[in-house]
């Protein structure tokens, strides 16, 4: 797969192009230039390391939206076996922006639900750019209840710009659909492990992200509003998105410091899309540990802890009132 480079990765892109050229030249060259290729590859590697060591939040949000970033279906394919996709909310439609179904994780039955984006234009439209409508959240709700009924742990994968702002979505109760999921996840009687793999866009993301453990990929983002949205409201200009990204605290590192997520899953240099196998191994390892940890607790203990955690969200002070 040819890697798509982001704006701030241009130096790497140029180097990689040069390496490609040399490789091509090597085939019909008498001189051995493989040493030169190795040297350049090393340079590219260290350049990537250097750039990725000091990414700004805005750059991270570009990586989180990278067109080649692994999506929910990629994780399902690599981490689970015997996946049986389940469709539809039983009321209105099947929403392709949310995917879900039963699968096996290390042989154990689990439920998997996640946002799904598309790769090419056709698939992007089919998946509505990963922006679910009420029927998507209601399908997810149905599958959550199903998981509870058969006592199987729930894994969710979060990757959405946000819930879809459309006429039909409003007519069918987008707000209610999201609110209901928050409510049900708060008391769902099975372990719930949420992994933010790309964009955690506002309420549309939260509707799948209430659980016992919330973990985040290193270059994923999670925010109350997109940086562009925040900038256009507060600065009256979407061009201020980099500033908004900076101040809102949308990166895994920042959110971990604030105690809003539990764990960061490190990505390979250059981001998850550069090395699918490595990221899949890392995610699998963390999911295993999280699941094992949660299964040591009784359902009651789990729910109590989840409730306490939810009640603990917020930063305020208490003063004496006259």
């Amino acid at each position, binding site marked *: 797969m040819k890697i798509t480079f982001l704006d701030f990765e241009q130096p790497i892109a140029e180097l990689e192009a040069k390496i490609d050229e040399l490789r091509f030249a090597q085939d019909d060259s008498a001189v051995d230039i493989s040493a030169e290729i190795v040297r350049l590859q090393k340079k590219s590697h260290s350049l990537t390391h250097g750039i990725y060591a000091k990414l700004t939040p805005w750059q991270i949000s570009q990586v989180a939206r990278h067109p080649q970033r692994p999506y929910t279906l990629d994780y399902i394919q690599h981490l689970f076996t015997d996946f049986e996709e389940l469709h539809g909310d039983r009321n209105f439609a099947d929403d392709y922006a949310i995917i879900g179904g039963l699968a096996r994780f290390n042989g154990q039955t689990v439920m998997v639900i996640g946002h799904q984006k598309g790769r090419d234009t056709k698939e992007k439209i089919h998946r509505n750019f990963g922006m679910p409508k009420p029927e998507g959240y209601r399908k997810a709700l149905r599958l959550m209840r199903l998981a509870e009924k058969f006592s199987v742990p729930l894994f969710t994968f979060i990757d959405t710009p946000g*819930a*879809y*702002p*459309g*006429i039909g*979505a*409003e*007519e*069918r*109760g*987008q*707000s*209610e659909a*999201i*609110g*209901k999921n*928050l*409510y049900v996840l*708060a*008391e769902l009687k099975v372990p719930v492990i949420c992994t933010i793999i790309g964009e955690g866009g*506002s*309420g549309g993301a*939260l*509707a799948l992200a*209430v659980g016992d453990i919330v973990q985040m990929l290193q270059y994923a983002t*999670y*925010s*109350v*509003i997109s940086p562009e949205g*925040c900038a256009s*409201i*507060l*600065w009256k200009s979407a061009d*201020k998105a980099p*500033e*908004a990204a900076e*101040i*809102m*605290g*949308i990166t895994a590192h920042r*959110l971990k410091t*604030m105690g*809003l997520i539990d764990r960061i899953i490190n990505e390979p240099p250059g981001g998850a899309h550069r090395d699918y196998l490595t990221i899949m191994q890392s995610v699998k390892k963390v999911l295993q540990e999280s699941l094992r940890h949660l299964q040591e607790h009784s359902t009651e203990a789990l729910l109590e802890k989840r*409730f306490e955690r*939810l*009640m603990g*969200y*917020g*930063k*305020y*002070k*208490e*003063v*004496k*009132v006259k």
Partner: protein
Amino acid sequence: MSWFQKLLPPKIKRKESGEKKVVPEGLWSKCASCDAVLYYSDLGNNLNVCPKCNHHNRISARVRLDLFLDTQGRYEIGPEVQSLDPLKFKDSKRYVDRLAEAKRDTDEDDSLVVMQGSVKTVPLVAAAFEFGFMGGSMGSVVGERFVRGVQVCVEQRLAFVCFAASGGARMQEGLLSLMQMAKTTAALAQLSEERLPFISVLTDPTMGGVSASFAFLGDVVIAEPAALIGFAGPRVIEQTVRQTLPEGFQRSEFLLEHGAIDMIVDRRRMRDKIANLCTLLMRAPPVS
């Protein structure tokens, strides 16, 4: 006849004809909906509902609770909870300055006021959003006060009523404010487990993170007439779908038609309705 006299409804005109009085500032109000010129006092006596066209004007949280609760036995919950600036947030203004400004303008210290009291002798806890305070946005203080209100209901076995009026989550608190959606709904899950009623009243406007969390989780969901209620703002939707929105889109009547709410209740009937609903849900005898 001057343009001003032409504008006056006949009733008011009669009163003013003859002698010329000096009219103090702020004596009149023009209805935002039907353009009728009204006495402030008339409007106030009518719960800020236009007597001509029934337009429900926005009212402050404290006025709302004052109109709603019985005068005796009120007790505020959570005034000790006060805001911080965890992100040291600054856009064109600092968050702390925006807070100070909102405090000055509204005389409130955040956008939710919660009170324990009674309605027609039915004991309950009522929360009301202050839209004038940073657009009624939900941050950590709102979430905590909401939860404390619900906890009082659980401890004393009371119904919980919330009057929403909010633009959504408070961006200046970043993801913390998103988490208030999860926090408030989780508290309601507990209320529900205790089989205690939650009555959600949606007033103009109820949008975004408030709409998409507890607002639609009421055992009974009520809206005031013609309130704007929805997940995404009309402008955002228009930009996304690139078509004109239908007439009355995201208004209470539209929601009722689409099955999203139980009823539309005139503000002047709110006390009667909610007292009756609470007694019905709690299998208590009716109140007169």
